[in-house]
């Protein structure tokens, strides 16, 4: 469907999104369009502005006190675990602390370098073809143990993202592990589901486009089949910086 050349459809979907009648897969798809299309996001904001005074007619109901107590406990000033996904602190931490450590870990084995003679990781793990092309690379580590768990790579011009788990036992019964691209600002974008072993995911566009502005990747624990909402719903299990290797 050539959606963008149809301003009337554009407007109708924006209205139905704001009203709430756009549902299910269509709503998720529309949210993806909104993230990529500023004009569409503005059309939605205008509709939300038109309709939101209606909420003024809803009878206010003071929530019970324990709701605020729970919010206060979780709204920590510095990088709360629950607020991890969108917190500025999380980004700073990832960008600074994690990148030096994990990027060294990541690149060292790849370089035939006198600085890294002790490298023991096998470079072949990072490229099924045995050669290393200009790629985006990430090693995701377990937040608790700091152990690297998942290696991810994608050639710059390729829309294929390759992953391999370093710990084959990462799968959790009845749950799925979802891989997310974490942009500098805005919501995480799902890259697909990963499982123990080795596999490939198809990116929505070549890696240069999909990962070029992505400083980090993360894996969250989701209901079987992946997040029902299009946004991470479960805890972040693994994360690590996504670096440009070329």
């Amino acid at each position, binding site marked *: 469907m050539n959606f963008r050349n149809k301003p009337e459809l554009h407007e109708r979907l924006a209205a139905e999104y704001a009203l709430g009648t756009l549902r299910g897969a269509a709503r998720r798809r529309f949210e993806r369009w909104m993230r990529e299309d500023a004009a569409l996001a503005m059309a939605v904001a205008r509709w939300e502005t*038109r309709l939101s005074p209606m909420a*003024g007619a*809803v009878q206010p*109901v003071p929530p019970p006190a324990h709701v605020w107590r729970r919010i*206060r406990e979780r709204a920590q*000033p*510095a990088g709360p675990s629950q607020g991890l996904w969108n917190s500025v602190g999380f980004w700073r931490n990832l960008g600074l602390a994690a990148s030096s450590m994990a990027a060294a870990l990541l690149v060292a084995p790849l370089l035939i370098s006198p600085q890294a003679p002790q490298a023991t990781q096998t470079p072949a793990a990072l490229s099924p073809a045995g050669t290393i092309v200009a790629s985006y690379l990430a090693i995701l580590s377990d937040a608790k143990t700091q152990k690297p768990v998942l290696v991810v790579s994608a050639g710059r011009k390729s829309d294929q993202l390759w992953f391999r788990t370093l710990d084959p036992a990462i799968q959790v019964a009845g749950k799925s592990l979802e891989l997310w691209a974490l942009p500098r600002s805005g919501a995480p974008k799902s890259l697909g589901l990963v499982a123990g072993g080795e596999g490939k995911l198809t990116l929505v566009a070549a890696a240069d486009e999909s990962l070029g502005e992505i400083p980090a990747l993360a894996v969250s624990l989701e209901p079987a089949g992946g997040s*029902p909402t299009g946004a991470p719903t479960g805890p972040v299990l693994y994360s690590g910086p996504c670096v440009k290797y070329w």
Partner: protein
Amino acid sequence: MAADPLPAQLAALLAACARRDQAALARLYELTSAKLFGVALRIVRREDWAEDVLQECYLRIWNNAQDYRAGLAAPMTWMTSIVRNRCLDWLRRPKFEVPDADGSVAEATASDRPGPLAELERSKEAAGIAHCLQGLDAKQRQAIMLAFYDGLSHAELASHLREPLGTVKTWVRRGLIRLKTCLEAA
């Protein structure tokens, strides 16, 4: 009830939340939580669910406060949209019990009684939309109000209003177009 908080006051609190100022979050919660809890309760219809939604939404507001753009929407509009979107996601969850299975909520709200409209007209901010809702056909108004206040989908609207799906979709679509025209003329 206290007067509605001013948008500028809320915008300043959001800016302080973006700087991780917890006192600002506390104040924002104090000023807005009863309204947002009312909105959530109306859509998800269970107190414990509405509590979970509210908790998630304030954490989302806290963690995304830096994304708030004053030029795009008023603070209350932004926060209300976060809550309504989360409620609609909530209703999508597997194993969700059919809300209001006996239709009593829909009946109470679907009737064309003046309640919500009269309430709307009392608010200066909402006077425009109240007037324009009044100008719609009764069916269009009913469908739009049920969708907005109760989070009903097209299919749920059709079943509650006992009308074919296509008919209900048309009411919603035409109603929205007329609303926009009316609001822009005001």
